[in-house]
């Protein structure tokens, strides 16, 4: 099989900034494009077959596996990566809660969890523990045993909803 020759122009917004690249190989994945062409190395590749969720990004607000998405497929969309969660120096409530609840160890799966959890909270601002466990079951963490990740997502939800003092 010879190398695919098709090249495309790809243009989309990443974390609020518009970007365009020419001569993008048709087979280039969104993950490789973000990591190598945009130097946004916060998005990680854990399995490259859509099963671990480490590469999760938001495409037009919906969570997507950037390892199974071609860069060309994202043409014309708005993409959010882990680098886009914080507002300048102010961390997203999920990022703060992950830190406070010790929801990360090696940090490799963390970007995918943060992005997936952000999608969860935008769909369901006040999830139960079971709903969090179910929603995040598309992401694998090998370090934490998940308990503190679940606690962090619930704490962030409580903060976003303005509930004083979370009970988790």
């Amino acid at each position, binding site marked *: *099989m*010879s*190398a695919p020759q098709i090249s495309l122009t790809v243009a989309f917004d990443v974390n609020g900034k518009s970007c365009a690249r020419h001569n993008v*190989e048709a*087979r280039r994945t969104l993950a490789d494009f973000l*990591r*190598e062409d945009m*130097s*946004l*190395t*916060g*998005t*990680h*590749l*854990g*399995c*490259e*077959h859509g*099963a*671990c969720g*480490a590469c999760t990004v938001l495409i037009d607000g919906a969570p997507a596996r950037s390892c199974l998405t071609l860069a060309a497929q994202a043409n014309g969309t708005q993409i959010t*990566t*882990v*680098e886009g*969660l*914080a507002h300048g120096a102010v*961390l997203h409530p999920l*990022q703060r809660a*992950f*830190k*406070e609840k*010790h929801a*990360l*160890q*090696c*940090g*490799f*799966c*963390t*970007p995918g969890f*943060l992005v997936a959890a952000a999608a969860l909270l935008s769909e369901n601002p006040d999830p139960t523990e079971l709903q*969090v*466990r*179910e929603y*995040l*079951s*598309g*992401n*694998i*963490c*090998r*370090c*934490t*045993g*998940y*308990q*503190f*990740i*679940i606690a962090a997502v619930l704490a962030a939800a409580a903060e976003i909803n303005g509930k004083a003092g979370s009970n988790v």
Partner: protein
Amino acid sequence: MSEQGIGKRVVRKEDQRFLTGKGHYTDDLQRIRQTHAYFLRSPHAHAKIARIDTKAAQSAPGVVAVFTGADTAAAKVGSLICGWVVKDKHGEPHKAPPHPALAVDTVRHVGDTVAMVIAETEAQAKDAAEKIVVDYQELPAVINPAKALDKGAAQLHAEAPGNLCYDWELGDRAAVDAAFAKAAHVTKIDLVNNRLIPNAMEPRAAAAEYDAGSGQYTLWTTSQNPHVTRLVLSAFVLGIPEHKLRVIAPDVGGGFGSKIFIYAEETLLTWASAKVNRPIKWTAERNESFVSDAHGRDHVTHAELAMDKDGKFLALKVDTIANMGAYLSTFATAVPTYLYGTLLAGQYTTPAIHVNVRSVFTNTAPVDAYRGAGRPEATFVLERIVEQAAREMKIDKAELRRRNFIATDAYPYQTPVALAYDSGNYAGALKKALEMADYDGFEKRRADSKAKGKLRGIGLSAYIEACGLAPSAVVGSLGAGVGQWESAQVRFNPTGNVQVYTGSHSHGQGHETTFAQLVSTQLGVPLDQVEVIHGDTASVPFGMGTYGSRSLAVGGSAIVKACDKIIAKGKKIAAHMLEASAADIEFKNGVFSIAGTDKQVPLGGVVFSAYVPHNYPLNEVEPGMDENAFYDPANFTYPAGVHICEIEIDPDTGVSTIAKFTAVDDFGNLVNPMIVEGQVHGGIGQGIGQALLEHGVYDEKSGQLLTGSYMDYTMPRADDLPSFDVGYQVTPCPHNPLGVKGCGEAGAIAAPAAVMNAIHDALAPVGVKSIDMPATSSRVWQAIQRANTKMAAE
């Protein structure tokens, strides 16, 4: 300050970069003129390579170079090594067949490296690899360790007749036989400890660069111990002088043992970087990780426990076959011997123990240390047979353990299998765990489950581990090729902040925080003024790295020693500044003072004076404030505890649900309870994974890895695990300055036996006697069906 010191729940310093996508993992590197490597791997479990034709690949678009085993052999690239020599029962060293980084004439497992393609892009390297023609002549393969020693089994290595790596024993066989002869009861058990695939979420990766001007190589690699990597590559494999090779292990996304070892890929990248005179990067795809990372466990064991009429353990004998895979990984030989047989006393006074281990070669990926490494296997044997014995003797499982525990006043306690335990309170941990788990209320809960048509069981696991590896003299006498001390350097800057260099390596453990807490407490420096630096052989003193739950007990102790040297030097300087005798100077909370007076000078002032020595005792003390220490532990540390699993099984589906999981661990003193609890959770998660879900399976005929993706190899996800109830028993370690024991592996060691004991407890009433890990719903359902059929027939 005290809110940030030893014993406090301090949030982690390293989190900021990980949470914002600003970490620096190996695959994030982009070097100028960087090329990409791709490895062509064997599709066969065992085959002769009749011919390799790389011509078409060499001229494919973007290709820089293609190398095969013929090239590395011609260049005299050495064999990958196994660094621990185990002597068999006749005193002969283990069989050590060569392990070429690129296969020369034979491939011995699916995934064995056959050729390396270097190209401008990863895609071009991969495209070119497809153009390499390899003529394989397939050979018969052996996969199952229990069959590797059979007459007529496929043979892997001429150097290891019969596929035997070694036949090793420990303990007094005659004493064991005598005890069995007078036993009132003997419990026998057959166990499989399932093959696991570690699966750190960051795949292995490496990048290598050669500077032709200086002759300097730099290797970035996903390593838990960069100095050991440098030593092995320099002294044994590549012959690059140690001072011309810099190894950097930047942020590493989990290891669990699998990143201790020195693999073919980083070896080849380093070697080839000079050949092509350009930087080369390689990152494993997950399917490559599955077939080329060192796997874990894979034991087949028969064990027998002899007891008197009251259930007092008289003797234990254990016979194990351990799978080494196709080649010996870096520390493979030690895992089923000195990290396994020595732990078979567990928490008990069993006076006579004998263990025989035969390690065998098979056509599978190499097997080496994975979280716990030998100790989970020992705990599984012992704790499964103890509960089996309790069932057979009709003695309560907690009571049977109590009758056999080593007493709290018996330390140091010499076991019959080499180790001398230093401290512990096993009965205390058991009592606490039973209370937390509401053990007394279990029968009521079992009855409630039964009323709903469910089967409920409870299982205990009273584990011990020897960690904090290790006293160098001891491991040296047992065949280790290295010392196992740790290094530390505490370097003050003139402005008063501190850089701490440690030979330990953090790949999730939070050393940047925990070690800073140590320095903050010892020296009274605010946490944010302490920077912990690790993972670079160019800046960190030679260190042994992180494995075997050693970082705090050994690496942390080295930091304390370095802090002590800072204080001792600071006292001399302060004495000069305060015009007093050094013997009269006290140091507390970052301040030097003359005892019994209010005359004092803060550490920052002393440090400044050391760097700007205008008024300074130069004839007594050197300028500067920068101290090195090396710490070699006096003994292992012995974390121990009790984990209890309560499980409910739906007999109609075989689905097991963990109703409650309780852990009481004795790690000695805790430096950061939040981080410790995280380590416990993660270990339990992996232990439950082994018990219920995970299994590295090869097809016995073809030798293909059937569980080669996340669609096939099942790791626990958020909806597979419960929340864990974690408590502590604290008996400080008596021989290290912090009184700490090590917490990283406990969960993975204890949990499998707790879960499987719970499953056997739940299934005993329906006649299921034995079920192997992983107890998947399918296996449980089938076991129940078989038992039903058998019962109906009887």
